Structure formats: C-alpha cells, structure tokens
C-alpha cells in the first residue's frame, strides 16, 4: 500500500524549493556586491537542475528496481521545474536575453516550462472529467470500439430498412451520423469540457424523429444508444489524446534544450572562464 504524505509533508518540497530560490537569489545579490559573477553558480545550478529534471525520464523506465515512487519523482520534477524558471531568471538577469543563440535557448526553455505547466494543469483537470462520464475505455481500444459501434449502427440501419421498408432513417444516417461514426469528432469541444457532441447527436436525433413511424422508432432509440456510447468515446479520446500528446512538445524540446545547454556551457567556459 502506498502512503500519501500528510498536508504538512506535501509542503516540504515546495518549501525546500523556496529556500533554494531565496538562497540563490541572495547569493546573486551578494555577488554583485563583491564584484563576483553570480552567473557561474546560477548557471551550474540551472544546468544541474535541468539534468535532474531529465532524470525523471530515466526513472520512469526503472520501476522494476526500488528507486523511490514515481509519484515522488514527479513531485520533485514539478517543483524543480518551477524552481528552474526562477533560477533561469536569476541566471539570465532578464526575461529575454541578448544574443540569438541565448535567445534560442531561452525560447526553448520557456516552451518547455510552459508546456510542462500546461501538461500539469491538463493532468489535474482531465481525469475527473473522464471518471464523470461514468465509463472507462483504454485509449488503444478506441479504434476498435468505434469500428464496432459503426458496424452496429450500420446493421441497425440496414435492419430498419429491411424490416420496415422505409429508407428515411438510412438516408438521414448517410447524411449525418455516418460522418459521426467515422472517427472521433468534436475534439476541440471535448478538449475544453463542453458537450457539443451530445448536443449535436440530440439535435440530429430530434430532427429526424418526426419523420419516423412507430415501427422505426425502436431503431432510432437503438441508434441513440450507440450515439451516446460514441459521445463518451469522443470525450475519452480527446482527453486521453491530449494527456498523451502534450509530451510530444515537452520531451523533445527538453532534449534539444539539454543539447543547446551543453554547448552553451562549453562556449561560455571556453570564452569567458
């Protein structure tokens, strides 16, 4: 069983980060008073911090050996990331540096930090939304699920046509619902937590309902069930996809950032130290 840290225990890590930030800031301020150059220490601290943040990637691959819980490592990573922004500002002394190469590093750094914050926010916000759909589906099974729903919908439509002899529903299906069952839809709406998909399906079911006979109605009801399932899938797809693909920005950018930082370290040491 895992034990969660108490409220007070949860504050320990941010408090430590604040202490480090204040100490480093104080050192930088004092260094100016001593004709010292605080950039070296803040630079090394920043570099070490970035390497430490990257270690999370390694840790994720090493769950087989007892290295501490990944949840703890992630907390260190998040707190360390925020601390890194502060140390970055201490190191550059400005929000935006002079010099194209440093500006490239700064741009990448801000991108990595912003994407990290974005990912953190997203990962706090989305899971409960998914829970509240009342259903769970594994991301990789979504294509299969959509395929099944699509096949089932087509069967329902075909059966309706066969059994009732009317093609109203079939025609309407081709115009509207076929598009919906083809692939996940309303990505943007689901991403922000709106319910456009449900609204759309409701609206379109209502539109065709008035033209259906009582024999056709059960088919529309069944179709509505399938549509409701598809709406849930779409919600899951949007949220889970975002929770997976935000890392396409964050991780590669951080790798590039490390490379650029290593070169920066070499250049600074070759020319200024």
């Amino acid at each position: 069983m895992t034990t969660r840290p108490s409220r007070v225990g949860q504050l320990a890590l941010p408090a430590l980060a604040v202490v480090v930030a204040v100490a480093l800031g104080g050192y930088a301020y004092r260094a100016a008073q001593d004709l010292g150059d605080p950039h070296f220490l803040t630079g090394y601290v920043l570099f070490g911090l970035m390497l430490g943040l990257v270690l999370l990637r390694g840790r994720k691959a090493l769950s087989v050996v007892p290295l501490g819980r990944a949840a703890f490592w992630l907390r260190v990573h998040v707190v360390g990331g925020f601390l890194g922004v502060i140390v970055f500002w201490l190191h550059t002394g400005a929000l935006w540096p002079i010099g194209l190469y440093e500006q490239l590093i700064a741009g990448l750094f801000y991108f990595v930090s912003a994407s990290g914050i974005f990912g953190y926010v997203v990962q706090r916000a989305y899971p409960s939304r998914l829970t509240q759909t009342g259903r769970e589906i594994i991301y990789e099974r979504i294509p299969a699920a959509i395929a099944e729903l699509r096949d089932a919908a087509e069967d329902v439509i075909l059966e309706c046509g066969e059994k009732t002899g009317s093609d109203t529903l079939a025609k309407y299906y081709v115009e509207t619902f076929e598009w919906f069952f083809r692939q996940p839809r309303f990505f943007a709406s689901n991403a922000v937590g709106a319910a456009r998909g449900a609204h759309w399906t409701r609206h379109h079911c209502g539109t065709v309902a008035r033209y259906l006979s009582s024999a056709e109605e059960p088919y529309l009801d069944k179709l509505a069930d399938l549509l409701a399932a598809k709406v849930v899938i779409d919600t899951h797809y949007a949220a889970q996809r975002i929770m997976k693909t935000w890392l396409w920005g964050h991780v590669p950018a951080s790798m590039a950032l490390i490379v650029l930082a290593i070169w920066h370290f070499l250049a600074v040491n070759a020319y200024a130290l």
Partner: protein
Amino acid sequence: MSNGGAGRKGFGMGFDPWRMFSSITPLDDDYERPNMAYRCGRERRWAKPCPNGPTVGGKCGGTSECAPHLKDGRYECRLPKWAGGPCADGPLPDGSCCRTRPPCVPNLTTRAVRNRLSIIAAAAAVAVIGAFLSFSPNSAAWFSSLDPGPLSGAHAEFTEDQGCAACHEAHSLDAGAWFLAAFTPSDPTAKCLSCHSFAGPERAAHNATFARAETTGAALGCTTCHTEHKGAMAQIAGLSDTQCNVCHETKFSNFSSGHPAFAKTFPHRQRTAVQFDHARHMNVHFEDAKVADKAPKSCAGCHKVDEARRRVAPAGFDKSCAACHGDQMAGREMVLLRLPEFDENLIDADDVLAACGPTAEQVEALEERNEALAAHIEALEAEEEPEEAEDDEDDDEYEAVSVDEPDPLAAFLLGFDADDMESYGEPLQSLIGEMAENGIDPLAERIGEATDEAHATAALAGLGPELVKRVACAWAANLEYEAPADPDFGGWYGEATEIRYKPLGHGDPVARAWIEFSIAAAGAANDEGDEDAMERAVAFRDTLLDRKSGVGACTKCHGVNDRDANDAAADGGGLDLEISWALPPQRNQPYGKFNHAPHLNMLGRDFGCKQCHVMAEEADYAASFSDYNPHSFVSNFAAITPGTCAECHATGQVRQDCLLCHEYHLEPSFKKQMLAHDDEP
C-alpha cells in the same frame, strides 16, 4: 482480439454499445501491451485491428488469420478458440488460409512517436549548432552558435577583421584545443590591454599601489567590472555605485547618505599663494567709498568665471589688483651696494685713474697745475720768479665720504661682518676697484658663485656696466656718485653712496630675481655647511624679505613657503624656501573631479560662489602667513562638507553616483592608432 472482423454476427439490435467499456475483460481478450512500439495499422483508419498484431520489427503480422495444419493429407483450419474456432470454409487446397487481408502499415504508438521526436529534436539541436558554427575571423553571420549578443558600438566595428579572436584567444584554436580551453581558465584582460593603457599597473585597483599595503587589493581583470556583449547601446564603461562599494571599507548606499566626510579644511589644502584676506577686502576695503569705482562688484570681478573648471582662477594682478595696488610697488627700492665708511683708503689711485680717468677735481687740479705749470713755464721763460706752488698737504688725510654701514649683500658676498670696519674695508674697496675696472662682472661673478649664473644674470639685468663703472669710480675717488638724472621710471640707478634699484612695477623681474637669489643663497650656504656664511646669508635674506622695506614688500602678498614644512626629517630653520609668485599649477587629482562651470551656471555666475564658499568672518586669516609653513593655515572660508553638496546631489534630485565625481582608472589612454593619416609615411 475478439472476433476478427469477418462476419457481423452479434451486431445489430442486440448489440450492447457499452461492451467495449471497462468491466471484466472477456477472457478471450489479450493483455494491452503499451510497451510494444507498433499497433495494427487499421487503427489509423478507425477500423478494428487484426487480432495478430504487428511483428516486433514493425511489419504487418495479420495477413492471414490462421496457419493451416496438414494432417492426414488434409489441411485443417487452426483458428484459435478465441477467434471463433476453426472456420467453416477451411483452408485452400494449397494450404493457405482462406481468410486473408492485405497487409497494413503498422502504427507507432504515441510513446514511440515521442521517443523518435526526442531523438530527432536532439539531433536537430546538434545540427543547428554545427551548421551555424563559425570560427572564421569575420563572425558577422546573422546567426552563429557562438553568438553571445552584439558587442557595444565602440568595440563592434574594429573587431570585424579579427572577429571573436580579437578578444578571445580560444576562438583561434583548433577543435581539440578549443574543447580543452573550456576547462582551463582564460582571461580577456590581456587582449583588452593590447589597446587600453593606464598610467599605472593595469591590474591594480585604481591603477596604483597605495602606501597602505592593505588597501592594495587583489589583482583585478578588466572583466571583473566591464562586461561586453550587452548590445550595441550598452554603456560598458559605466559602473554602478555597488561596484565601487565592493572594495571601499566605508560602504554607503548613495552620496547623500553615508559618503565619508570631506577633509577638515576641504577644499583648501594649504594657505593661499597670495595673501589676500577675502574677509577684510570684501567687508572693509571694498566698502570704502574712496575705491568704490575700483572695487569689484562680485566674485566674478576678480575670478575668471568664464574659464571656470576645477578651480575658478583669479584674473591676475593686472586685472584684479592693479586698480588699487598698482602703484604700490614703485616705492619699494632695493639697495644693491652701499658705500660704507672706510677707515683707510686702500684703493690705488693710479688704478682708479687708469680705470676711471681723472675725476673732475683731479681734472681741475690738473688744470690748475697745468695753469700753474704754464704760469711757471711762462715765468721761467720770462725769467721771473715762479710762484711757489701750494702743497696740498691736506691730501694725505683720508676721510671717507660715507658714514653708512655696508649692506648685507656685500657682507654676504664678500664674507665680512657688517660691523667690523676693519674686516670689510679691504674686500669692499677691492671690489669697488674691480667694479671700476670691469663693471658688473666682479659682482656678477660673486653672485654667480653664491648660487649660479642664472641668478646673477637675472639679478643684474638692466644694470649697465657704465653705471657701475661711474659709481665705482666715484666711490673709488671717495666721492659720492652724482646721478645724471632722476630715476622716475624705475630701474638701476646710483645715488650718492648707493646703487639702488627701483622696481618698474608689479612683477618686476629684477626684484623677483633678488628675492629668489636671497633664498637660493641661503640654501646654498646651508648646503656647504659654513656657519658664518650661512649666518650672513640668512641675514641678507631676511633683510631682503623684510616686508616693510625694499623689495621684501613683495612678500607682503606673495607667500614664502618652506618646502620642507611637512618633512619632519628636514632640518628646521626654514632654509628651503620658495615664493609663491603665481597661482600654483592645478594639482594632479586623478581620481576626483570637480567642475565649477556647471555649478556657476546653475547657481549664478556672480554670487553663486557664496552658496558653497561661505565666509568665515572670524577666521584669523593673517595668522596663516605668520610663518613659512603653508600647511598650517586658516582659510577665509568655512570648509565645505558633503552636506552642502547633498543639498542638490541627493536622492530624487541631481545625479549622485560615484562616477559623477570620481574616476577609477588612472589616466586611461590608448595604445593603438585608429586612423591612418595621409601625411604619415
């Protein structure tokens, strides 16, 4: 993995739309394997993936559903139970499965894509660095992997040819050495110093070594304070007050709060060159109605405010003082030589006759004799009885024409006591004899021997040899000299028993030369160690410098300063003197600067001075000139304190940063020439 997609059994009205959602996984479902990099490519088209899945290498693994087995000569379908069991159609006669599908192109999972993107991003970063890496001298490419920001305008242009290597040695090394340079210390200071130079050791604080050893800090490089690459507009020479505060023990946040007090008598370090009592003049003399038209109306009346810099010099005697004091020089005459009372006449009359020719008396006497002789001859020729010549018996008795004492100069030059008639008789008369023969030369010689020829020349400038001869001849004949005319305009003249000099006016060079000589003579005598000579020299000097008589009146205004006043090791007695004739040259103060001009502009050219230079009414200014020590003094003005400056130079008002008044570097200059000139070879 359930139901390979062939056949639609189970869909339709009886289908449970929530089947795929989480509950208990049907037993025939395989695990989800997120650690595998590939998934069936049909998922990309939102179709059901085939149950086999891709191979590890990323190829489609599900082109056929089963692998038929040859048993007893027949092929049997081996479709697993979870796929529905053996199919109804069975394998084809050649043993291939009847259910085939075209191969898919397997999909990478999001994580696999992410891992690839990471490698690509890292490689791209390396590529960008490599592509824009430029070690050529002219690294003015729009983007370089080594671009740390633009140089300041001053440095940017001239480094174009050499590029980064102009300042950074590492830039011109080969790859391996460059890499190692990242781990060895380097310092651009040497390169800075190839152009910039200072008047002292470059790496020492303030480019100087100070007396107190502990104030000489550790060696500093240029980059300790000056950082480049801050943009074309950056002011890299400017330093912050904080940086100054680093080394100085007394630390303070700004000028108006905490700057150490100025020196006690700031800005006055010693007494003024010329004794000018501002208080008396401004309060008393200038108020006098008699001089109302001559007195200056304001400080600018005497001080040259148009040329105000570190100091606002007064305009010089002619402009500032002559109006009132201009004719006060004329009466200050100096005696060069005085014919004293002799007790006996030691001068050879024949020499005198040879040098000077006969005197008028002698001529008269000769004429009388000639007449007498002629009468005698006449008588003889007439054979009459000549008259008996009268014997001048009283010629044998000598009576000096003068009753004075010899002057101290003669006493000094000739080395006799002025009181002792017996001691000075011979040397002085022989000098007179020489002067009668040779004019100035004997005197000049002796003056030159006492100090040097320069003094002699200057002191006797304008003294014509005829005058000297005539005077000397007269004295040699024991006669008073009779001057042909009155010396109305000054200069050398003889009168009765003295050769005198009347100064032409202020700044008379001869008067000045004599004062200089008297000081130098005393000093030279001191060096030789002859006590008697020194005594006489001092007596001569003191006579000459006596304010109340003669040219010594110069010292009424011009201060006489003992050069050794602050030197405890020097012997006392004030023998190394100098006169402050003119405003001393501006003292070299390399680390502090002050310019009156903007202050006078702001505060008023006429009376702005009063803002800071406050008269100290009760100060005993005159006491400053009571001795030869220029450093013990009382100023007319109260000392200026930082508080006075801080009335304007304070937070929220005028600039008060260290660099406003202080310099760090000692006389910075340049080693290199920036332009080639046409006329140079």
